[in-house]
């Protein structure tokens, strides 16, 4: 929904510029203002947004956007690419200790979801045939140890605890225990603490010095706002963070904190927690997160698909044909093949934002997969002459085409009717856009 607004706003912005020839820096600025607001609305830190927009602007002013038939989408594409790049690649692997156990410390603010994430991570490891040990080092929150014990019982994973003793001592003893009992992973649940709490931050430093962990994962609530940068910065200054766990992603937050934290720590976001169930813990997908922050979901996938499968030269060619109304069945066939490359049609139509009336009309034509194959066969059974000028297809030609394509005369009739509809629709579009140049083929 939010994408609708961002996408539509961008398209509106660029539509107004149509017929004016080249885009100017000011045009790009107007468009990027919308992107900026979308990112801020998604809770990306304003400072991160500022630098990010500057980078996108640099690229947008390049020829890429200017030469594009669809500047709005090209800008979105650039934004998305830069976001994904900034978010880093997918790195869900934990580094391993030369000699087991591999020690993983979970750190973060109160309520971020450390305890639950510790249990979920342990389960993930257990499923991969490892022997994890969970260590209860949160001695402050009432019943935190009990919570881990209950989770450990549920998952059949041992939990090491020493009551309310000094956390660094607990960690030390746990390490001995893990070695002795041949645990190859040791996940330490630490107490939630504010990054400005000097005493508790110092405790973490000591624990890290004692354990020499392979991984220190900062657990961050995906709903965190502007403050995410301060938190991440403070933890990073004190500890050698190796990764981030993003929790509560099953909510409806856009999760801009992911970008802020990533920008500050430079660490990859390794895992995403998406639910109350203990197995709702997954490797993190940076590309999906980028789309989510922009609020554009599937649409980006669609744009990417289209970019990958749609030949821009052919599109230009087609535009010319549309404008001069020389659209033939051959072109129709070619279009269908282009579309087919993009994947299941019903999904594509669902993904399209702002299709409005046109989307419905296209749906009425019922371009389902089977019909696709049929249509292809029918058109391929036509002579070249017939394809270019369907008007000459009389009833005896229809019979021949039906026989040749293994369909019924009725199917041939339907196709010709459909083609007629499409042609009419395109004529209308062609007229509407006359003098301004046609934006793009109506399917996209």
């Amino acid at each position, binding site marked *: 929904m939010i994408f609708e607004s961002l996408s539509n706003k961008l398209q509106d912005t660029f539509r107004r510029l149509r017929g004016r020839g080249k885009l100017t820096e000011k045009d790009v600025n107007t468009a990027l203002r919308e992107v900026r607001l979308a990112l*801020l609305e998604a809770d990306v830190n304003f400072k991160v947004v500022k630098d990010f927009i500057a980078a996108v602007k640099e690229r947008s002013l390049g020829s890429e956007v200017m030469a594009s038939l669809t500047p709005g989408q090209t800008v979105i594409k650039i934004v998305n690419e830069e976001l994904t790049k900034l978010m880093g690649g997918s790195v869900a692997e934990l580094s391993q200790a030369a000699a087991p156990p591999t020690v993983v410390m979970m750190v973060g603010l109160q309520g971020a979801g450390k305890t639950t994430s510790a249990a979920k991570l342990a389960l993930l490891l257990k499923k991969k045939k490892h022997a994890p040990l969970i260590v209860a080092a949160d001695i402050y929150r009432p019943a935190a140890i009990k919570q881990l014990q209950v989770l450990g019982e549920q998952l059949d994973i041992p939990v090491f605890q020493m009551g309310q003793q000094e956390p660094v001592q607990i960690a030390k003893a746990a390490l001995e225990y893990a070695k002795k009992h041949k645990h190859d992973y040791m996940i330490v649940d630490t107490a939630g603490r504010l990054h400005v709490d000097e005493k508790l931050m110092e405790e973490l430093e000591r624990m890290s010095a004692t354990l020499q962990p392979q991984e220190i994962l900062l657990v961050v609530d995906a*709903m965190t706002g502007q403050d995410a940068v301060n938190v991440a910065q403070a933890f990073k200054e004190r500890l050698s963070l190796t990764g981030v766990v993003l929790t509560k992603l099953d909510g409806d937050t856009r999760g*801009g904190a992911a970008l802020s934290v990533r920008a*500050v720590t430079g660490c990859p976001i390794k895992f995403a927690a998406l639910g109350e169930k203990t197995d709702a813990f997954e490797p993190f997908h940076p590309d999906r997160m980028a789309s989510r922050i922009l609020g554009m979901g599937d649409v980006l996938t669609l744009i990417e698909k289209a970019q990958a499968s749609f030949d821009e030269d052919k599109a230009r060619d087609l535009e010319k044909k549309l404008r001069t109304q020389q659209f033939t069945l051959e072109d129709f066939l070619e279009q269908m093949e282009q579309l087919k490359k993009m994947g299941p049609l019903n999904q594509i139509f669902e993904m399209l934002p702002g299709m409005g009336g046109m989307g419905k009309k296209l749906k009425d034509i019922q371009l389902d997969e089977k019909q696709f194959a049929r249509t292809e066969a029918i058109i391929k059974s036509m002579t070249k002459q017939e394809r270019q000028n369907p008007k000459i297809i009389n009833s005896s030609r229809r019979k021949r085409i039906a026989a040749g394509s293994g369909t019924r005369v009725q199917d041939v009739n339907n196709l010709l009717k459909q083609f007629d509809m499409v042609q009419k629709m395109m004529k209308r579009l062609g007229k509407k856009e006359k003098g301004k140049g046609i934006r793009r083929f109506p399917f996209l």
Partner: protein
Amino acid sequence: MGLFGRIKAGLQKTRSGIMNRLEGLFSRKNFDDGFFEELEEVLISADLGVETTLDLVEDLRQKVKDEKLTEPDDVIAALKQLLLDILGESEESLEPPTEKPSVILVLGVNGVGKTTTIGKLAARYRRQGKKVLLAAGDTFRAAAIEQLEIWAERTQSELVKHQHGADPAAVIFDAINAARARGCDVVLCDTAGRLHNKASLMEELKKVHRVIAKALPGAPHEVLLVLDATTGQNALAQAKVFNEAAPLTGLVLTKLDGTAKGGIVIAVARSLKIPVKFIGVGEGIEDLQPFIAQEYVEGLFHAD
């Protein structure tokens, strides 16, 4: 330097940046667009959100024009007044409970500090000499009941609990009846943290609300939504959806002792007219304070 490096370098300065900006704001002699832009950044960085910020700054521009303000101090004062208009200047307070028992339902998403808030509220009422009963309505999270049990001991409050996995409505129903039988003044009802986009869990909440009204006509007397000050724009969605499930009477803003400003409560107060009643400022049992709008607004413009 790549984009990444640039952003990283930029952020090194963020914290001191806010401070400098604020000082810069106050020392400015005139206010051009740059002034208002900086003000926008201050508000956005406090999590007020884009819409609220843009509207506020627009109102402020108008005010500056109408009242012909020329001194930066006057402009900042005008902005503070705009914020106070939204938050309501009068000190909202829960005490003393007028009904006996007074039923207070506490809601929120996961990890905002509901149980801790209940513990602190219990301590507060106990200091006032009230007889308090805690209802262990979070029957879902592992050890949530035990956590509340510890708070009951610490504050010497009564506790009504069922098994883990029991129906929360039933727990709270029993708790209200027990409170009446034992002559308690206040019943504090804990609930499981739930994300507001989980329809079934919000239905469960509606049921809890209905059952409370059935157990004691006129109850619940207060429905408090706990918001985490570090939460960004999503808090607005939380408030909206929770308010539909169980009409809210107030907000509790927790974790204000960090560096987060919790400015989203301004957006919430503005769109839903729900007052902030308490703020959580620390781990201690006494670290729950009444919300005082004036102090909060001052804090927004204070770099710490």
